[in-house]
């Protein structure tokens, strides 16, 4: 049972990490607290729902299209809500407020258009039976999540640390004006980051919708708190940190539920994470920002 609980924890943690990846790109790297992130997540899931139910797509075709669709949604929302604030150098937290209003409108509109009911992807999209390996049970959807998380972590780390683009993103996040002077089109770069982040969220939405068989307008909203926790405990903008914090959170929750008391799983998880922050005030892998006197 211990081994199965560990697997449960890792799988749950992987879903947290999967959700957090695009979020850490947008919030951790770009320093924009964009609460519409949860919406991209459900947007991706709904696009996949439409593609598979109405247009007969298979999962491998639906996944990338849904991801890009969510990316497009992200770009549009960035343009509508945030581009103006960036132009006028608005205070940092105004981005939080505008996206708060934005999600309120979006979720309500989505609920009245799509209906409040929970939907599910076609059951035969991926095999729903679990593999049994040495007594441990894992489903195809769960394996997909593990795989997607691993691929995305790798790709994002490569992007952020290894490419000019990643460099430009980090530069723009810190000093947009100076980045402009270097020849970076900050408007377009911000749109690109939104797109990538939206794609990651969209793909996450499809996979998590597939795994838990529940797609509804608020599905991303329900993960926002965990998403925040994961990227902050991991250290803002640190992709490896988001992965590890996600896994940690998943394992703690599962082990508390499995071996202590299920009613306390959030409490214990949060308490431990707060203690982590007390001992490492910039998260597991975060570096304190150098600002010299």
């Amino acid at each position, binding site marked *: 049972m211990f081994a199965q609980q560990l697997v449960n924890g890792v799988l749950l943690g992987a879903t947290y990490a999967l959700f957090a990846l695009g979020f850490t790109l947008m919030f951790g790297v770009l320093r924009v607290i964009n609460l519409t992130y949860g919406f991209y997540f459900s947007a991706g899931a709904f696009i996949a729902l439409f593609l598979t139910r109405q247009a007969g797509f298979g999962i491998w075709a639906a996944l990338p299209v849904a991801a890009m669709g969510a990316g497009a949604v992200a770009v549009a929302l960035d343009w509508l809500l945030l581009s103006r604030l960036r132009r006028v150098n*608005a205070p940092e937290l105004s981005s939080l*407020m505008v996206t708060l209003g934005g999600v309120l409108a*979006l979720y309500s509109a989505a609920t009245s258009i799509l209906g409040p009911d929970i939907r599910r992807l076609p059951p035969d999209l991926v095999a729903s039976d679990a593999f049994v390996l040495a007594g441990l049970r894992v489903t195809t959807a769960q394996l997909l999540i593990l795989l997607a998380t691993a691929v995305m972590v790798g790709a994002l780390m490569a992007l952020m640390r290894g490419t000019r683009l990643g460099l430009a993103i980090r530069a723009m996040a810190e000093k947009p004006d100076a980045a402009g002077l270097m020849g970076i089109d900050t408007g377009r770069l911000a749109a690109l980051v939104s797109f990538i982040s939206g794609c990651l969220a969209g793909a996450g939405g499809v996979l998590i919708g597939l795994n838990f068989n529940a797609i509804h307008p608020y599905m991303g909203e329900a993960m926002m708190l965990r998403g925040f926790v994961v990227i902050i405990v991991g250290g803002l903008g640190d992709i490896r940190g988001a992965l590890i914090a996600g896994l940690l959170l998943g394992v703690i929750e599962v082990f508390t539920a499995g071996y202590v008391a299920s009613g306390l799983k959030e409490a214990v998880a949060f308490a431990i*994470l707060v203690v982590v922050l*007390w001992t490492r005030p910039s998260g597991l892998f975060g570096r304190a920002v150098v600002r010299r006197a």
Partner: protein
Amino acid sequence: MIIPPWLDDFLWTYQNLIHALGINGLLALSMYVVLAVGQLSLGQAAFMGLGAYSSALMTLKLKLPFFMVLPASCVVPVLFALAIGVPTLRLSGVYLAIATIGLGEVLRAVYLNVDYFGGALGLSGIPERAETWMIYGLLFAAVAILWLVGRSGVGRAMEAMREDETAAGVMGVNVGRYRMGALLASAVLAGLAGALGAHVSSFIGPNEYGFEPAVTILSYALLGGIGTPLAPVLGAWILTLLPELLRGFSDLRLVFNGVIIVLAVLFLPNGLLSWRMKRRGA
């Protein structure tokens, strides 16, 4: 004085709204005092919950009179603020925000799991002891005090900290003490709001003090602004009134609500009341 019947009816109809405006105003101020020193501490909902639960229990179980319950309702939140303040206030920005939200979630689990707190059923049958004049009296007093303090050297020190803690420290501002002071003031205001809220609505439940209320309280201050203590109160009032004013739109009510917020922020990114008060008392 004779109140004309139409006014009586009006007051009854909007009584809860009138109470909520005052209470949310206090909550907005409890957010304001921490934002004013540059801290993104989101423990307000948790403090409000502590005030609400402790006051409700004092009324229900100990049968204490409200004039004792109300001041006492600050005690528990203040004790919590003291306890978490020391380790937590080293954190800054979103790290602090998450740590303090963690407090709210832990407390929620306690309310849910300990029968004494009523579990998911919450506490009901709380007598309606908070009067409108108490709520607005406290709100007025809080605005006045924060205003007067804001215009003094203390206000200057707070704003200086918000802009640059290192430089403020070099100017002689005891940064740690100010942070703690702001957190305690925040706990007092939120605790009072919690107690008042519990004693106007007869029921409190564990889900009223978690993550979402924490964000709502933050949004009061963000929408209104933090230039003066009036700004967050205005923000709270607008966000409290909007859903009621928009009842006519039925289904699309919250859509319009969101759109209005978006437009307000886009065109007034520094808050609805963006002017700042003069920081000099002479």
